[in-house]
């Protein structure tokens, strides 16, 4: 029957039209905003830290877009994430960010690591772009007077000091520690501040307070740290702290039993232990190792985008297939950097880089990541670092005590 069919079609079309017009939210769609990031998909960081950072950025963009995007001035803008592989080479990251500028991308998310971030920061400064730094902690980056780079993570000075503070709360507290430090700026600086903190807590540094610059200094990314361990032979430290990245920590733990240079209580390391790659590399030898981390899921702050830390962990690990016991904290750093950029744009109410830069400088907000606020150099000194311990292949938060889920296994070495 033609009449009723056409009436039906007309009604349906009218209904669809009505739905399309009136069905969207109160704000209408604005133009997309681009976040551009050099990511390490190949090379040394290719499948580990670079991957975690990339996933963090993607997760943040997906989450924000699913909630309608960045909203200001009565409009919502979806985020368009543009990335390019920098092959884990700092010079390539800088070149990519320069090319981003030519394409008009002013909002930059940092590459992984202090090396890449150090190379990109002057480029960002020169081009008038704005960068949210997720994983470049070296304080040297912020000593040149750059105004356009803002780091959400705690600076390098906190990496070893947080471990020392955690050790001081254990009983029996260790009296002597040894620090093996890699030769790159980040590790050396972390070690330097750690030595100061340890002495303030009354601990002795073995073999001497400056040996992290000489006899216990190792080449960055070294897979053989025997010279540092042999230099420690006979001094019997309670704790050996490795200030470096994954390779140095793995090598030190493996070679220590070869050389018979084991600490009495435990090993500790920065950067490496709270990553899945550490457990894959060491297996059972990773048990009991302490590590400082930028984020744990037990922190209590929350925000409107990700919820609280536990919800972030659940959603992130479900999306990318990680185990909630072996989560990569670099992804949380990345998501937080991206979130800071989002909040700044919303606060500035525009996409003008100068306005957004000003909004970032004035930002003071609680998020799933903790408190984000930047000092005059662009670092986030309002957030502290936490310490985890590897127990039965899972990351267990042990410091500070109000966030600890279980007591630390102490001494960790029998």
């Amino acid at each position, binding site marked *: 029957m033609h009449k009723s069919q056409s009436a039906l079609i007309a009604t349906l079309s009218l209904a669809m039209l009505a739905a399309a017009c009136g069905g969207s939210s109160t704000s209408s769609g604005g133009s997309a905003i681009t976040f551009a990031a050099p990511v390490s*998909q190949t090379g040394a960081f290719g499948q580990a830290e670079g991957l975690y950072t990339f996933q963090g950025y993607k997760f943040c963009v997906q989450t924000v877009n699913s909630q309608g995007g960045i909203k200001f001035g009565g409009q919502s803008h979806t985020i368009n994430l543009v990335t390019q592989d920098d092959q884990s080479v700092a010079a390539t990251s*800088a070149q990519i960010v320069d090319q981003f500028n030519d394409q008009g991308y002013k909002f930059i998310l940092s590459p992984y690591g202090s*090396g890449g971030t*150090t190379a990109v920061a002057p480029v960002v400064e020169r081009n008038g772009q704005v960068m949210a730094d997720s994983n470049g902690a070296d304080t040297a980056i912020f000593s040149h007077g750059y105004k356009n780079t803002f780091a959400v993570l705690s600076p390098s000075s906190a990496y070893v000091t947080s471990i020392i503070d955690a050790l001081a709360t254990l009983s029996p507290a260790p009296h002597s520690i040894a620090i093996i430090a*890699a030769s790159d700026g980040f590790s*050396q600086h972390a070690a330097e501040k750690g030595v100061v903190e340890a002495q303030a807590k009354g601990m002795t540094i073995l073999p001497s307070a400056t040996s992290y610059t000489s006899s216990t200094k190792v080449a960055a990314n070294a897979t053989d740290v025997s010279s540092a361990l042999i230099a420690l032979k006979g001094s019997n430290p309670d704790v050996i702290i490795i200030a470096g990245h994954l390779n140095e920590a793995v090598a030190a733990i493996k070679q220590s039993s070869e050389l018979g240079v084991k600490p009495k209580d435990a090993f500790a390391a920065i950067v490496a232990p709270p990553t899945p790659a550490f457990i894959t590399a060491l297996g059972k030898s990773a048990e009991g190792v302490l590590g400082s981390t930028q984020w744990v899921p037990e922190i209590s702050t929350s925000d409107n985008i990700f919820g609280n830390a536990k919800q972030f962990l659940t959603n992130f690990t479900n999306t990318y297939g990680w185990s909630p016991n072996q989560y990569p904290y670099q992804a949380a750093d990345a998501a937080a950097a991206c979130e800071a950029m989002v909040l700044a744009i919303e606060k500035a109410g525009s996409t003008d880089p100068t306005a957004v830069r000003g909004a970032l400088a004035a930002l003071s907000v609680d998020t799933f990541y903790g408190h984000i606020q930047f000092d005059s150099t662009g670092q986030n000194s309002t957030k502290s670092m936490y310490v985890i311990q590897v127990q039965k292949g899972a990351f267990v938060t042990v410091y500070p005590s109000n966030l600890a889920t279980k007591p630390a296994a102490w001494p960790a070495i029998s």
Partner: protein
Amino acid sequence: MSVAGATSEELARVLHGRSRTRRELLREWIRSRTIANTWPLLLGAAGFLAMVGLQQAIEPGTQRLLASVFMFIALAQAWNIIGGYTGYASFGQVAFFGLGAYTAAVLMTNYNVSFWIAMPAAILVGIVFAVVIGVPLLRLRGHYFAIATLGAAEGAKEIVNNLTGLTGGGSGITIPTFGTNSPTPYLGKPGFYLAFLIVAAASIAIAAALARSRFGYAMIAVHQDEDAAGSVGINTTWVKVVAFAASGAIVACVGAFYGFQQIEFYPQDVFDSSFTVLMVIMVVIGGSGTVAGPLVGAVGLELLSQFLRVNLGAYNQLIFGAIIVAVVVFFPQGVVNFFRDAWQTRHLSILDNVRRYRL
């Protein structure tokens, strides 16, 4: 001219092996220029002007890409001088690159020296280093020379790495480019495009001049049979060291510009052995022992590797390696030489090429 009527001036000239004055020689040379023997010079000048003009038409991002192409042209030409013509395959040219970069950076950062003084200083350092390691190492040949220069490059890197007070060591060095501290304003992408273009043009000119001069013949003679060359009176040590120093000076100059362009770098960035590898690959694939070979190789490979990096992400190194293998197997004498031979013999066969060096 007769001996009897010769003046003492003319006698002196003849005893030095010249039958005419320099001015007469120059006039003769200019008069003898035809299109057939001037076309490389004209082509080069035209190319240079074209590149300068191109700068107006492209965006800064592409300028940076082309600047890196020019950089590799200069590096390839420099390697060709010692590796292609003289036959001493140096695997440590990156030592000059790093030393040039660090000299410029240290002078600019620690002593607030202008870049235009630091860059010649870098060239000087390159020449001195070439002489210092060249004299003992150029006595070795073949594989041994290659490894020895590789060792020298790694050694230079380690020394720079450990002189933490001067160079910052593993923490890197940053050239101040902002505010009152900076000795020279940053050149910017257009500035560096022009700078690298000029360096590339200069390196091509130097390589061409060397190749066609007596010195060039001496280099080729040393390459083909060093003992025979020595026995006809060529001072082979002098030839080798000068070639090594020329090559080192160009690489050091490029290194200084690169360091300035990067602003912030670590030892492993500027002593990266992949620079050496790329230099060698570009010359060999283009065609060693020619002027056009390194040019073709540098342009082709640099554009290829940029293209691969941007478009093929995770697979780019893999494909790059496969392409190297393929080109070495199919064009062992280099692309330019292959096409030149094919043109001259009117015979184009890639399969014959494969059979050329096989067992």
